[in-house]
């Protein structure tokens, strides 16, 4: 199964909503929700600096924010 770290949904839009509607909204579903007990020997970043700047030693946990696919659409 392909895992995504962002889910999208479409709230109900009423003709009487005062703010311009956001058609598509999103929420985060980061990797720890899918990992289970971390397996041993998970692939690591190549350098310590890369790990530092990504905030984790393992690319499988790296979850860039805001998401590349965008947060919401008008």
């Amino acid at each position: 199964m392909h895992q995504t770290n962002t889910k999208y949904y479409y709230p109900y839009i009423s003709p009487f909503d005062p703010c311009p509607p956001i058609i598509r909204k999103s929420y985060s579903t980061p990797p720890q929700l899918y990992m289970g007990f971390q397996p041993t020997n998970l692939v690591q970043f190549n350098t310590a600096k890369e790990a530092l700047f990504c905030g984790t030693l393992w690319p499988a946990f790296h979850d860039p924010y805001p998401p590349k696919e965008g947060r919401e659409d008008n």
Partner: protein
Amino acid sequence: MNTPKQMPQAYYDLLEEIQAVDFVLVELNLYLDTHPNDTNAIEQFNQCTYESKKLKKQFEKQFGPLMHFGRSYSGYPWNWDDTPWPWQM
């Protein structure tokens, strides 16, 4: 007016190297707290510990103590409380 003290680029560079190794150590430490039998991770942890100690020795020789309460040697005069503190740099 006081001439402001400025740290050389080497200070920031070496500190960043220490931050990187120490970060790997934090990651491995938390991982080992839930995976106490992973020998590869323990070996990597010990290797990084060695690396971190080496870098800190080098840093402290140039820029003064990183730790207090006897975890680092002091210069003369007492240089533990020299600026900049981490939030100031």
